């Protein structure tokens, strides 16, 4: 996720921060504009195109019957994958998922899973034999920073519009996938004593540390991930958690519009 930006631009951004400003005029806690368009992909069971500023992410859901895991014979399976395709950034390369892409997919997965947004017990078809498999595929289209929040939003927005394709497999009529929660990931970066939400790609490139907090409808925390080679102090962490909870509420309201 590191990006080559010129030293001059780095200095410029850094100096702005010292003055309490950001290049695009936002406050440190402010998100860029967020838009969510759903059901763009008719071949998918559910889909959502999420834009945060210029960042664009397309999430698609496919479902099919398959075998449960041996240690959870009566529960559906969620498989989350993220493709950081080279179309989206000069720093993404073709090939198998990198560490960065794997981490992103796993954090998105954690949000869906730990919030229990999807009740896996209801996805059992034949106990021990056949369950619904939900594939959450996140396709990054344009990486202008903070694609983790966008991907997490895309995943849950796509799930919210998913129709279980029962008829296609001779399993009765299609029905909307029941979704019980709306986990929202909010990411902040840190440098010096400053904490800044929804970093753009330049801001990401000068930050050492990032913290993502995933919160659920009832205000509880259901996932966290620190990344980057810096450190965080407990007061910083607590402040990020506080703001994250507020921001998540605001973003969650977006879903009422969809």
């Amino acid at each position, binding site marked *: 996720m590191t990006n080559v930006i010129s030293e001059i631009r780095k200095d410029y951004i850094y100096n702005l921060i010292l003055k309490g400003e950001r290049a695009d005029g936002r406050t440190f806690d402010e998100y860029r504009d967020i838009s969510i368009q759903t059901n763009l992909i008719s071949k998918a069971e559910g889909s959502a195109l999420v834009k945060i500023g210029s960042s664009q992410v397309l999430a698609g859901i496919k479902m099919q019957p398959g075998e449960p895991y041996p240690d959870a014979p009566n529960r559906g399976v969620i498989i989350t994958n993220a493709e950081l*395709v080279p179309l989206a950034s000069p720093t993404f390369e073709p090939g198998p998922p990198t560490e960065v892409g794997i981490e992103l997919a796993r954090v998105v997965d954690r949000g869906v899973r730990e919030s229990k947004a999807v009740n896996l017990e209801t996805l059992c078809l034949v106990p021990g034999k056949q369950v619904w498999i939900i594939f959450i595929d996140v396709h990054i289209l344009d990486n202008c920073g903070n694609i983790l929040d966008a991907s997490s939003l895309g995943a849950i927005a796509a799930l919210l519009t998913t129709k279980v394709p029962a008829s296609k497999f001779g399993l009765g009529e299609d029905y909307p996938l029941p979704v019980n929660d709306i986990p929202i990931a909010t990411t902040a970066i840190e440098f010096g004593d400053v904490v800044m939400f929804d970093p753009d790609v330049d801001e990401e490139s000068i930050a050492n540390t990032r913290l993502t907090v995933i919160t659920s409808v009832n205000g509880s925390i259901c996932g966290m991930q620190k990344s980057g080679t810096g450190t965080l102090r407990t007061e910083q962490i607590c402040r990020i958690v506080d703001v994250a909870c507020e921001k998540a509420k605001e973003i969650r309201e977006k879903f009422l519009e969809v």
Partner: protein
Amino acid sequence: MEECNDNISFFKEGLRLDSRRPDELRPIKIEAGVLARADGSCYIEMGGNKVIAAVYGPREVHPRHLQEVTRAIVRYRYNMASFSVEERKRPGPDRRSHEISKVSREALEPVILTSYFPRSVIDVFVEVLQADAGTRTAGINAASVALADAGIPMKSMISACAAGKVGDTLVLDPMKEEDNFGQADMPVAMTPNGDITLLQMDGRFTKDEFSQALEMAMKGCREIYELQRKCLIGKYAQLETEPFLEVQVCD
């Protein structure tokens, strides 16, 4: 051509299942400059196909040993999103996408002035977001606009389109049902002045049918070329006073 099912009727009162005439293209929508990070980009819809192309470069080649001393190399990566097709596709390239990447690159390379940029690479990335027969031609059309959008010097645009045969009738731009149950499919790409840069065929054509199908596909390419042109003019007309497209895109 998977199967030719004679019980399927592909026409009703001379029109196709989606009400098109045999020689009619599906509705097309082209938009250039849709991505912020890429040097050039284009989103295209051709019927049910939704495809996005990005161009990066000319830029440095990694790994180095791929460099060419006298020209830029061109790379083309055709990729399908897992959710773009009926049955979920495993992520990553398969044999089909490797072949499509190769012939698509060879469809565009003839018009790219690679000698302007020795030791560099021009990368073309095509992502199929939704597939409905004809993704390779949609990808080439988008890539061609994205190359222009990136300011890559080209001798001309490339336009691409397939002709097929269903129920013993030649049709332009087959959609999914016509592709699955048809008798032949032939994707073609060409320059505005009729030089063929992509030609593939499978199924069955007599020599006469082949000639007619080729002519039909070329007619489709010419129509698409007008749309590509309009898209780019629409985008650049305000920006540039010189007739940019006349000079750079058409030869």
